[in-house]
């Protein structure tokens, strides 16, 4: 059996989901930097039908040969089908509903998949001032579906976010519709422990799979709300040597 890290499990599983979406005709993926960008670039290398990577810096159809450190590395622009201005990428491409998948991360996530990337503590006197919203609020609102990739801990997976930077399902089922949001919201939260999906009846995140070697107890301990599990909880497939090799080559480049 191959050795791998929990981060590798997380990234490989996210890439698999992107591959499945691309195969189903959902290819256009608006990618945040960091974990989303790594997983999306891995998916581009793993699957015959590649996701189309769109970055908020205005790059459409980026095919970077190395992982960018920032959203605006030259490599992203050099390898894009088109480069547009920042006002255009948000108005003509994201807001207009041309993005199938919004791919986000954050500092805090709550049980309704709302994301906080603004402050820990109060807004006026924060314990920790985080970078802030960036493109996330409108990605979360307008993308066809949203996928979240985040390392899981009781501190970061909370009952309720200190600040709602990007909406998931608000306070529960029906909130997105009441607010008139056009996108479908978060459908998958992929962590270093497993995969969560919103319960169809309540929109509360439920664990639908754990990664190989991860126990329910670990997940419970790393979740700040009374998390539920699906019946007959499956384990995600072991990463294949091809997946691991491709990811490691990508990260070493």
């Amino acid at each position, binding site marked *: 059996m191959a050795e791998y890290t929990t981060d590798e499990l997380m990234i490989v599983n996210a890439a698999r989901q992107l591959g499945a979406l691309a195969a189903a005709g959902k290819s256009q993926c608006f990618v945040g930097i960091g974990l989303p960008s790594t997983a999306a670039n891995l998916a581009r290398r793993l699957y015959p039908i590649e996701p189309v990577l769109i970055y908020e810096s205005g790059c459409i159809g980026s095919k970077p040969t190395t992982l960018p450190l920032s959203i605006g590395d030259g490599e992203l622009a050099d390898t894009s089908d088109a480069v547009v201005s920042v006002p255009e990428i948000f108005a003509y491409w994201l807001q207009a509903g041309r993005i199938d998948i919004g791919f986000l991360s954050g500092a805090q996530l709550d049980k309704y998949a709302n994301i906080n990337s603004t402050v820990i503590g109060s807004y006026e006197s924060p314990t920790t001032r985080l970078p802030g919203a960036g493109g996330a609020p409108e990605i979360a*609102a307008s993308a066809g579906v949203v996928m979240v990739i985040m390392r899981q801990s009781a501190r970061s997976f909370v009952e309720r976010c200190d600040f709602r930077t990007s909406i998931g399902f608000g306070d529960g089922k029906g909130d997105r519709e009441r607010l008139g949001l056009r996108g479908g919201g978060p459908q998958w939260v992929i962590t270093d422990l497993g995969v969560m999906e919103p319960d169809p009846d309540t929109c509360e995140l439920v664990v639908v799979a754990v990664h190989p070697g991860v126990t329910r107890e670990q997940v419970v301990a790393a979740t700040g709300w009374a998390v539920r599990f699906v019946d007959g909880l499956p384990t995600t497939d072991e990463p294949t040597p091809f997946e691991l090799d491709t990811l490691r080559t990508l990260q070493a480049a």
Partner: protein
Amino acid sequence: MITSLHDAVAQHVHDGDTLALEGFTHLIPHAVAQEIIRQERRNLHLVRMTPDLAYDWLIGSGCVTKLTFSWGGNPGVGSLQRFRDAVENQWPHPLEIEEHSHAGMATRYAAGASGLPFGVLRGYVGTDLPKHTNSIKTVECPFTGEVLAAVPAINPDVGIIHAQRADRAGNVQIWGLLGVQKEAVLASARSIVTVEEIVDELPPVPGAIVLPYWVVNAVCHVPGGAHPSFAMGFSVRDNAFYKSWDAISKDRDAFTAWVDKHIKGTTDFAEYRESVGV
């Protein structure tokens, strides 16, 4: 029109001004930020989608009383430590913040460039931002009745960008990631552009835009002036510098020593480059 960076800042940047130094990761006008620190401007209202190191320097150096922004991190690295310290601990003094999303800021710049008082977007819905940011309101579509977000135009006193080239008349050519640079210049009352080179004629370049000389107030020849950001065709992003900034900026003394040595201790950007060895 074509002048030294020293003179451009002396002439166009005043205490209390609202400044937009733009460049989305690419072409960030870091040299201008340094010159503003050297000339000790105070009470600035800084506007920028992604404050980046340029604003970390300015905030930590005590030049700034208000920041309007949408993402205040060190891209690919983590926190912007001087920004954090100012918000969390009011060091070196309190910093008022006006916080938006990227889409909202882009809409605000576009409205500013268009001579409109506000812009409309599908934005902020279901987020906590409107609770804390007064400049997010709503507007009703007069045709469908739909309610949308409205944000006020940004119209800085000075729009500041770095670009690849200018010709001797002051026409400015920019290519690669264009961010909101055009909007920042067009939305501003005055503008300063630093460039990698000044040439007799601007050869056409795929993906390039040109800002005509008559919307630019000062063009300054500052090779490498985006460092540690980059200018496509001239330099690459100095990712190592961005990573090293985290440790320097985490500590107030280390930060102050760095600014004293590399910015205040140099007379211009060429000296700064020698000083940091790039």
